[in-house]
């Protein structure tokens, strides 16, 4: 089939499926079947090439920030913004962005790719830049082991032709520097020594969980001298952070929930500096960070019956730990909703790798989701009081809101629980993103 015909057909399917409210990846699937090299051919034409952002935690928020930073400097950025981070999701986004002449009006593509799909993607499209964030235990029932995840990201590092930006503080990510192609370069983002204990790697996590003073690295990977980083997160304050950018201190206002988002901001900035090169205006990039808003379900706040309610996506121990560390428990009414569908990860063992001690003072108002009883059991063994258990998300949510009183509300929820809760909230009241 001829190329323009394939594209027009794909665009037609996209239009038709948007009418029936269909999934965002469906038109891309049609394209992939008809013309498999479609994505690679289109992206190869972009003047600044393709940026791949991957890792187990924080991809969506980091991608959003990187896109915003690059756009603020005048670049036209194509991104897979629906969060449908598969090759066919990228193809679907491409179709949405192309004009009637089949041209993509963009200077650079910034793509969020799940580590397993990133491997598939880089076989078809060589990225010019890669930003690799972390390797935390995530959906292990899909990928097996975290060393397997590291090997997947190694394929991305190897395929990158320009610059690979790596997290200096994650031992598995840092080791990818050895895998980068000879003619490509490695740049780093990192944490000050003072902040490192706030972000234990998975290897350190057991010691932190058990609250030993001595945070040691994996016994095979002793702490070694770390390379110099382009961007270092120096200090975290209430609504701002201190960043060291090429040795210059900057203060950025960041209104995102959680210290992990502030570290993601450092990662996005390090990437933007590489893509922009000498034309980067550091001061205005730092300023732009204050205008970043949360990505879907990543700490977004909605207003329900005049009260703020925050939805916090939790999908692995590291993310859950950092979410818990980001607010004092007794200020909030707290609900936790745990599902175990494929997209959540079928295995709920990971809940036992999260330390819930910080919830002990305020307790948890209600737990819900398919695995609500597992969650209640987990909390009980951390001596956290559970108000009630209701596996039905809708009745649990209503009970939670009714019982919250004047307290701001927050719900820690797994992916499919979040989708359901958002839908229920939408039906209960007008859901506003603040």
């Amino acid at each position: 089939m001829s190329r323009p015909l394939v594209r027009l057909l794909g665009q037609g399917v996209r239009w038709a499926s948007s009418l029936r409210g269909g999934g965002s990846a469906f038109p891309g699937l049609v394209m992939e079947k008809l013309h498999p090299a479609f994505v690679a051919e289109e992206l190869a034409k972009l003047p600044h090439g393709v940026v791949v952002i991957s890792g187990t935690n924080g991809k969506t928020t980091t991608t959003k920030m990187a896109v915003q930073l690059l756009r603020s400097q005048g670049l036209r950025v194509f991104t897979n913004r629906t969060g449908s981070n598969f090759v066919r999701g990228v193809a679907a986004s491409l179709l949405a962005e192309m004009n009637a002449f089949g041209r993509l009006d963009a200077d650079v593509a910034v793509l969020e790719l799940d580590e397993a799909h990133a491997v598939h993607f880089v076989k078809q499209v060589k990225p010019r830049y890669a930003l690799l964030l972390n390797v935390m235990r995530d959906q292990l029932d899909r990928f097996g082991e975290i060393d397997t995840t590291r090997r997947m990201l190694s394929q991305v590092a190897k395929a990158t032709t320009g610059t690979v930006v790596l997290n200096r503080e994650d031992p598995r990510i840092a080791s990818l520097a050895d895998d980068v192609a000879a003619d490509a370069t490695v740049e780093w983002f990192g944490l000050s020594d003072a902040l490192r204990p706030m972000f234990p790697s998975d290897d350190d996590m057991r010691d932190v969980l058990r609250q030993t003073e001595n945070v040691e690295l994996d016994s095979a990977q002793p702490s070694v001298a770390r390379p110099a980083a382009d961007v270092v997160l120096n200090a975290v304050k209430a609504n701002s952070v201190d960043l060291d950018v090429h040795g210059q201190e900057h203060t950025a206002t960041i209104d995102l929930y959680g210290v992990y988002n502030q570290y993601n901001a450092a990662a996005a900035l390090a990437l933007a500096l590489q893509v922009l090169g000498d034309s980067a205006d550091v001061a205005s990039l730092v300023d732009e960070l204050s205008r970043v808003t949360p990505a879907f379900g990543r700490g977004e706040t909605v207003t329900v019956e005049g009260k703020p309610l925050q939805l916090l996506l939790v999908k692995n121990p590291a993310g859950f730990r950092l979410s818990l560390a980001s607010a004092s428990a007794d200020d909030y009414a707290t609900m936790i909703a745990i599902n175990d569908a494929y997209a959540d990860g079928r295995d709920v063992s990971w809940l036992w790798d999260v330390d819930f001690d910080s919830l002990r003072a305020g307790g948890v108002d209600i737990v819900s989701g398919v695995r609500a009883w597992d969650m209640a059991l987990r909390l009980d063994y951390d001596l956290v009081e559970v108000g009630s258990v209701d596996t039905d998300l809708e009745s649990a949510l209503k009970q939670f809101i009714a019982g919250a009183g004047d307290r701001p509300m927050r719900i820690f929820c797994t992916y499919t629980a979040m989708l359901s809760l958002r839908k229920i909230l939408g039906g209960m009241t007008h859901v506003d993103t603040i």
Partner: protein
Amino acid sequence: MNQEKVGSLDIVQLYPRDMNIYGDWGNTLTLKRRAERYGYEVRVHDYNPGDPWPDYADLFVGGGGQDSGQFRVAEDLARVAPKLHEAASAGTPMLVICGLYQLFGREFRTGGGETLRGIEMFDLETVGGPERLIGNIVTESPEFGTIIGYENHSGLTTLGPDQAAMATVVSGAGNNGEDGTEGARTHNVLGSYLHGSLLPKNPAVADFLLRTAVETRGDRFPEASLDDTYAEHARGVAQTRPR
């Protein structure tokens, strides 16, 4: 619940630094909390490669790990094997999960073609299989009743002719996906592939380990029973979940 102190209990966690994957910390935590609720003062001791062997232990517990972690501990395990055999023969209970369970057997031939020597606590052999056996699993044991967990392993384990299994598979794969056995038991040493974590949703196994630990040293275990409402509901739900 008996809050009066009825003595102390020393739990040794084997190789927490290298073998602590898939929430196996939940096993140690469950033992600790339940023992506390029975009235014991609990001390948890970490044992990592190269550490001095603990002076005293009522109970040993150890978890799964990456293959890379297994290589690290295999050598150290060989060094302390006589101590573990001595404790096991004396009746000291142990629970080893997944990676450490494999190393308690005779040998483990990895998917990469390397062979790790085990400490022969169990008469069993493990070979790296072509694919991971992943999913919810339910087993049945005459002593512990229905055991519920989640398995995630590529090793295929075959028990020797006289080696007792820990349980029989009801749904899931178990030791090898073929013969219907899951785990192994010798003296009071239990080996299993089940995560979940295993002990929180299986209080009967947890209490067996605690009771045996106390009785092995000649003390009587308290009569009290704990409130396991959450665990019972969680067990009920887990049994209805797809693989």
